[in-house]
């Protein structure tokens, strides 16, 4: 049940074994559809994240895998076996719950031993595995404490240990770091990565924190309103969002609504609603666009350059005026109002000798390669 042979975690070819599959899964609660036809394939040994804003159905998706919810339609397959209606206690998965759900009537040791005791393992084996797992999460010193006597980070480790000690095929993590402060969260992120690499287990993590998802995951699926918007590696998701929602949700971006004005083999020209003309390099996401189709142009703030002089290089260069300048330490965050009336945000490395004054006339510039054009088919 828990063989989980260690694979090269980077291997994502079609030949790898699938640990979790969701096939056209729907979940309806009292007439509200939380999950609408989700298809997922999670490979053995990968760190997979489900990312989305709250209410997007990501936690429900995880609960469907864990077995706490039964799908209204569709199929859940774990390690090749259909588990759609199998109760949670017969699934080879374990969950690390949001805010941990530790048993406060049991000690740390008893919490971790819970699953093994239920399985009826001999005492010696339990003791050995609990000890081993305590060491893994560095909690050997807290064996006899009760959860209420532990800090948040320590509780997090116990929750991890309690799940891992059962050697599940898939480890499900529901917003595992959500309750921790920033510093602790960074530390635990590193530890999660290490654990994942050491154990070679399949991790499925639900989070609303895009940074966490981008830094930890092998692949990410972005969910929105019960549907999967995009599945891909962190860089695919960030660099090539396939919808305006993903572009907007992952990182910051400037979006301009408009229509396709002209197409050629390598470039697309778009006229925005505010009559700006933009040139965008053609990419896979924009292959199927038609002339006059309603589109959105997305430019990341860090890809925009601000100059005091108009730039003569071919590309997108617009005149504007600085509205706000926000000092962020490593970066300076600027809001620029273009002559067209659009407001854009620009993230500049902190190389200024002194911060520019608001109302300074500036020119915003970006190359066709640095922006994306996305069809507005689903998000209006």
């Amino acid at each position, binding site marked *: 049940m828990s063989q989980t042979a260690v694979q090269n975690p980077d291997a994502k070819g079609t030949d790898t074994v699938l640990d979790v599959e969701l096939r056209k899964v729907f979940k309806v609660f009292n007439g509200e559809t939380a999950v609408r036809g989700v298809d997922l394939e999670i490979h053995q040994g990968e760190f997979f994240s489900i990312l989305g804003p709250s209410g997007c159905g990501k936690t429900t998706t995880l609960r469907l895998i*864990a*077995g706490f919810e039964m799908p209204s339609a569709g199929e859940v397959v774990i390690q090749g076996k259909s588990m759609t209606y199998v109760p949670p*206690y017969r699934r080879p998965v374990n969950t690390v719950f949001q805010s941990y*759900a530790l*048993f406060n*009537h049991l000690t740390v040791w008893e919490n971790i031993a819970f699953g093994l005791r239920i399985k009826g393992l001999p005492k010696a084996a339990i003791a050995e595995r609990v000890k081993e797992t305590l060491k893994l999460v560095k909690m050997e010193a807290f064996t006899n404490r009760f959860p*209420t006597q532990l800090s948040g980070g320590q509780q997090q480790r116990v929750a991890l240990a309690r799940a891992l000690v059962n050697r599940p095929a898939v480890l499900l993590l529901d917003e595992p770091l959500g309750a921790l402060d920033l510093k602790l969260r960074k530390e635990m992120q590193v530890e999660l990565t290490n654990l994942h690499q050491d154990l070679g287990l399949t991790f499925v993590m639900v989070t609303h924190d895009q940074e966490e998802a981008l830094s930890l995951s092998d692949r990410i699926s972005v969910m929105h309103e019960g549907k999967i918007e995009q599945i891909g590696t962190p860089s695919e998701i960030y660099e090539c969002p396939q919808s305006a929602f993903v572009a907007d949700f992952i990182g910051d971006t400037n979006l301009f609504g408009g229509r396709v004005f002209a197409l050629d083999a390598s470039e697309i020209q778009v006229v925005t609603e505010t009559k700006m003309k933009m040139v965008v390099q053609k990419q896979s996401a924009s292959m199927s666009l038609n002339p006059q189709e309603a589109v959105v142009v997305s430019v990341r703030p860090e890809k925009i350059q601000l100059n005091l002089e108009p730039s003569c290089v071919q590309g997108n260069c617009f005149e504007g005026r600085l509205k706000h300048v926000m000092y962020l330490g490593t970066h300076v965050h600027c809001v620029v109002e273009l002559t067209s009336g659009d407001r854009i945000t620009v993230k500049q490395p902190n190389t200024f000798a002194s911060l520019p004054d608001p109302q300074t006339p500036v020119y915003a510039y970006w190359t066709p390669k640095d922006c994306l054009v996305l069809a507005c088919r689903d998000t209006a």
Partner: protein
Amino acid sequence: MSTQISSPPTPPTPKSEPQASPTAGRWLGYLGLLGPAGIWLGLLLVLPTLVLFELSLVPGLEPGGLVNPSGLENYLRVFEPVNLLVMKRSLFFAGGTTVICLLLGFPVAYWIALLAPTKWRNLLLVGFVLPLWTSSLLRTYAWITILRYSGVLNTLLTSPNPWLSNLGLPTIPRLELLNDWPAVLIGMSYGYLPYMVLILYASLEKLDRRLLEAASDLGANPIQTFCQVTVPQTMPGIAAASLLVFITGLGDFVDPELLGGDSTMTISRLIYNQFLKTNQWGFGSALSMVLIMLVSIAIALLLKFGDRSAAS
């Protein structure tokens, strides 16, 4: 010394009274909050108990007799075999009722708290508590009507039953439940079940359902989850409800008297008899003191073992 160390850094003044007195004053002020209830308890609980204790030390005290505490004879009488038997029986009734109420009440409270549709919950609870709105005496009389020799239950059981006769089975004999211990257990359990359900409900409602999911996730089937998570988690509620039923049951007078017939003398009935029938006030007081001790022991046990998680 340790108090000085832990106190906030103050200049080493030998007389720390200026610091201490405002705190003490505030403390006394808060004590004033206890005033009304304190007077109430003092006059109506502590004082009468002390008087009762004094009476219990007067051997053979009758009403109108001189209260001159002089010995423990009354207490020695308490430990005569027949009185020990009565106490044992009282404990059996109270304990049996507690167990029955727990077995019947837990599933109900569990169902209402965790499984029933939310909008029905209050209605279900009210429905369960509804019997408490009628007089307990009336409810006991209702049980007499049901359990008696010619009562509702026996009429139902012994009425010609086509299924039984078709199967060639003999008819059910009349049950002689009234005037014996089963009737007492039935009556008491019925009377205290609502209290049990209410307290357990309050406890189960607070139960963190994610803990149930966590247990299920770790491989525990519903029965294992129930035994290893639900029960320990609601232990304070279980203990409180059981204690309430047990103590009330120990002092119950009406049910044993009306339903129990001739062989169900309990400690509370015995006390009643000492005061109102045989006029043995000294002995009655001693019995009362023993009853108070029994209840105190039950509470002490609860405080010591009832709530492990809260204690930690």
